[in-house]
């Protein structure tokens, strides 16, 4: 993905539309709903100001809420995921990296990238489903929904990244 700002904006809008019109309507086996829009946050440059990352995360979730009639839930989950990004970058990246890079399979390597994105997704999906249920009334169902959605989203994001990788090589 090019780091040009209008590409980022297009990417931002594209992910919101995809989420609202397509992914949010998927309920695979009545459980799994993918939430791959957080991919946008994962792909922001590594040295970006943390406040800007937070604001973008919030806005991303907020716009999805706006179109999806789930006021605030995505915004909250996305904000917390955006906050966790910094720690994920600290924990799951190799040490010998340049000052500024875009997290991807290319820059981090496949294993590190999967861990990095997995950590963010895990937090995001967990917050999302916890807030959506808003109680521990049926923890087993909650856990199944959370884990199945996590796996589905993870696969989707890795596929995204794969396409992106090919695109970047050309």
């Amino acid at each position, binding site marked *: 993905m090019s780091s040009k700002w209008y590409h980022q904006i297009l990417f931002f809008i594209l992910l919101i539309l995809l989420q609202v019109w397509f992914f949010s309507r998927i309920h695979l086996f009545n459980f799994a709903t993918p939430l791959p829009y957080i991919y946008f946050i994962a792909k922001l440059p590594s040295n970006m100001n943390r406040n800007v990352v937070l604001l973008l995360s919030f806005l991303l*979730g907020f716009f999805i809420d706006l179109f999806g009639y*789930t006021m*605030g839930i995505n*915004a*909250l989950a996305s*904000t917390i995921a955006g*906050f966790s990004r910094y720690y994920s970058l600290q924990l799951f990246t190799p040490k010998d990296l340049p000052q500024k890079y875009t997290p991807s399979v290319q820059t981090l390597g496949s294993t590190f990238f999967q861990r990095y994105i997995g950590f963010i997704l895990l937090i995001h999906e967990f917050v999302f489903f916890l807030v959506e249920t808003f109680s521990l009334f049926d923890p087993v169902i909650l856990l199944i929904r959370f884990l199945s959605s996590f796996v589905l989203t993870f696969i989707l994001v890795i596929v995204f990244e794969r396409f992106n990788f090919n695109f970047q090589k050309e």
Partner: protein
Amino acid sequence: MRDLINFIFKNIHWLFFFLLVFISSFLIINNNEFQRSKYLAFKTEIIGKGHLVSSYVNSYLGLRETNQKLIRQITEQESLIQKLQQQLAELSVTMKTPTFIDDSARFEKYEFIAARVINNNVSGVENLIMLDKGSNQGVENDMGVFSLEGIVGRVIHTSPNFSVVISLLNPKFRPSCKVVGDNSFGPLIWKERDPRYAYLEELPRHVVFHIGDTVVTSGYSTVFPEGVPVGVITSSEKQTNDNFNSVKVKLFTNFITLKEVFIVKMNNKEEVQELENTFETNVE
């Protein structure tokens, strides 16, 4: 000082993060019915626990008055029973009724749950009352609440052990009431900020009421049974518009010293509502 500013500036993202989390939570609670109800139930439970402690202490202070009131109530009931039994005996002799028609189902229409007021407010514009019984004890939304003296309010919200009641001293609660002997009915509305008086509105213009006439609930809803005492008329009717009159009613219930109340459970509420619904759909 400079260190402090530096520290805050360095960790500004934490503040920003909590601000955004706060905004999102605010959005969630304000715009999603389900999450909102969960939040309210949680809040009610917490606040209720606090009020429970204070009311536990307070209940001892009013014990003497409560006792006297109960004794008075019992004596009244007792004398009424005596009177009715006497009447019944007389009637059964004169009319020689062989058997009574068994309509016991009618009398099991209502059940009562005794509850204690643990938080009460009479000075606000929209007053609410909190009771120490909740959904665990069988309290549900839209149940009527009355005291030994008269009508109190309607349950609007329940948590496992507490419930919130919209008081009669709240313009949003308009129980249907009627004047004894005449049966013309209308909504009772609390308008002035005086906890002793309310207004019975939408009464027909041609009927004349007298000061001192008793007002009771009409029973035209699934909230209250018919005949729960409400108050007495204290002023002659005033014309509110072309078709209706209104009268000022002095309430029986003393909301300022309210302690013991009863919650009415109507057993065939679902049936009535179902019937109403089918009726409405058939008309459409």
